[in-house]
């Protein structure tokens, strides 16, 4: 693994083409789809927070229950209480957007910190961080979150702090590997010989010039992770409670009608989850292949 990424990393470095010209078409398609989804999510989040919705998400329309998609006035139909599906889906983004950003910031911040410590300094801090990584990896994330819920309260921000902490080891080990690879390339030694302060070497030469794409990729994957967690937990009944919509509890409350053959109320949010998580995964993987040069030409 190590040698492979090193070799391809070196090849990628000596070509002057902009990254989208040497990238794989498939990867570009992944990235374009992912960016589309991210734009969608951000725009919908803003629409939701400024209350620019086609309907009031709590508004019951008992005349028009279980309308399918494409109904006049309700683009994505209505749920089992006649509430507008599109508005509820848009408002459902509120449930994970800011908490997800919190989780990402925690994992990136502490992951970078630990990764730099382990990679730049090595020695004892490296051993300690390996131990911490293995410790965090020992817990199934959902079980750890259920433990925290039982101990404290089912608060989405507390949950997302846990999600962020459980993502720290991944970021830390990637940064560590990157720094260990960079150390072989002499420019850090040259920096030290030139008398540059350690702060400049780490912040500018290592993190900014060489690790930013890695951090962007991890942020993307982390958001997918956070969405998955939020929807799973609100499905299990620990997240946002009805009548406030979240994609997870929409699937859950629509499920009662599922067995009666009314698929739409739980399928619409499930598809929203599917396309969104898929978008974040593909964006992360596509960027990884292009920027980190794992499959690039």
């Amino acid at each position: 693994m190590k040698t492979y990424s090193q070799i391809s990393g070196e090849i990628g470095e000596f070509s002057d083409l902009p990254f989208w010209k040497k990238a794989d078409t498939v990867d570009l398609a992944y990235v374009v789809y992912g960016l589309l989804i991210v734009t969608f999510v951000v725009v919908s989040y803003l629409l939701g927070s400024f209350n620019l919705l086609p309907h009031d998400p709590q508004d019951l329309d008992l005349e028009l229950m279980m309308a399918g998609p494409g109904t006049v006035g309700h683009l994505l139909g209505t749920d089992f209480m006649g509430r507008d599906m599109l508005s509820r889906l848009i408002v459902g983004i509120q449930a994970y957007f800011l908490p997800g950003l919190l989780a990402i910031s925690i994992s990136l911040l502490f992951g970078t910190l630990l990764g730099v410590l382990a990679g730049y300094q090595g020695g004892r801090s490296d051993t300690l961080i390996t131990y911490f990584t293995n410790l965090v990896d020992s817990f199934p994330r959902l079980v750890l979150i259920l433990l925290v819920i039982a101990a404290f309260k089912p608060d989405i921000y507390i949950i997302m702090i846990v999600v962020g902490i459980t993502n720290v080891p991944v970021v830390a080990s990637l940064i560590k590997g990157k720094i260990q690879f960079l150390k072989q390339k002499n420019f850090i030694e040259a920096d030290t010989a030139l008398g540059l302060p350690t702060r400049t070497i780490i912040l500018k030469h290592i993190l900014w010039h060489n690790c930013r794409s890695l951090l962007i990729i991890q942020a993307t994957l982390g958001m997918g992770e956070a969405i998955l967690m939020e929807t799973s937990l609100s499905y299990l009944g620990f997240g946002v409670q009805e009548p406030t919509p979240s994609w997870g509890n929409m699937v859950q409350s629509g499920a009662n009608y599922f067995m009666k053959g009314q698929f739409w109320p739980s399928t619409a949010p499930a598809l929203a989850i599917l396309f969104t998580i898929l978008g974040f995964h593909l964006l992360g993987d596509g960027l990884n292949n292009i920027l980190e040069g794992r499959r690039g030409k």
Partner: protein
Amino acid sequence: MKLSAIRPIALVLSREVAITLLLLLGVSFVVFIILYLSPGDPFSALLEGQLSSGEARTGAHEVLGVPPSWYARYLSWLANMLQGNFGTSIRTGMPVLGEVLRVGINTLILTLGSMLVTLLIAVPIALYSVVRGINKISWPLTMFAYVVSALPVFWLGYIVIYFFTHKLGLFPLAFGYAAATQRFGWLYALLPIFVLGVGNGTISEVIRSLRDEMGRVMAEDYIRTARAKGASVWKHSFKEGLLIPVTEIVAAKIPFILGGAVIVEQVFNWPGMGRMAWQAAQDRDYPVIMGIAILAAVFVRLGSLFQSVVYVAVNPRASKE
């Protein structure tokens, strides 16, 4: 096996067991700290059932000999746990260890079965795309794996239940234990195993890492030599290209699959650890969820112990590192 072949394995095994024990100690400490920090003093509940707050509790602590300092509490809790005393459930009053072990078997069946399903889907796709590269067949298959990995597992569960039990009537409608006592009731177990295997979100990752590893091995000189002299390429690439990455990824994904089991057990009413954890989180039944967290961590550590044993057995050089 010769003695010289067994020695490095025994050496690494003892080192790994020591690491595992050290990590489990850390796990117990993390669990303790979470509960210690939580409001409502779980330790009063843990040690002697629910008590009212304030002076009564302090008095009770003194009478019952609850240590005042946190490390003394941790040590006494740890000592209890090592003797198999995980406390009693607040809700049912049953000893936690017995209860958790009883349902733990069901979870073990579910996770191991679904891992098999994941591998049965992912390995052929990965091997095919290594051998043939990206083409008309492997690209849609990879795409399909991505889509399936992003599918919310609870919704997949509903669809499967709807089609197999409502539409086709293939599997008994009775859930959980009632089904297990029926003839062919075990068939019902196949549904959650299949759903978790497909929907645990690891298929695309398994494919990606297998493809990378196998691709790397296929480009090695010794594979080219094998091919040149007409020896079997599969035989030579199996250990490094397939066995090691598969055990590695399976060990790494156990926590994810256990997490997915919480949801699938909820959907299918499967009487396992995940359902118990859900119930315990609803009731704030600390002793139960602590027991589950620790047992789940034991599962995970055993998985990675197994992985390192396989790694050393295949590659004895690793013991010298």
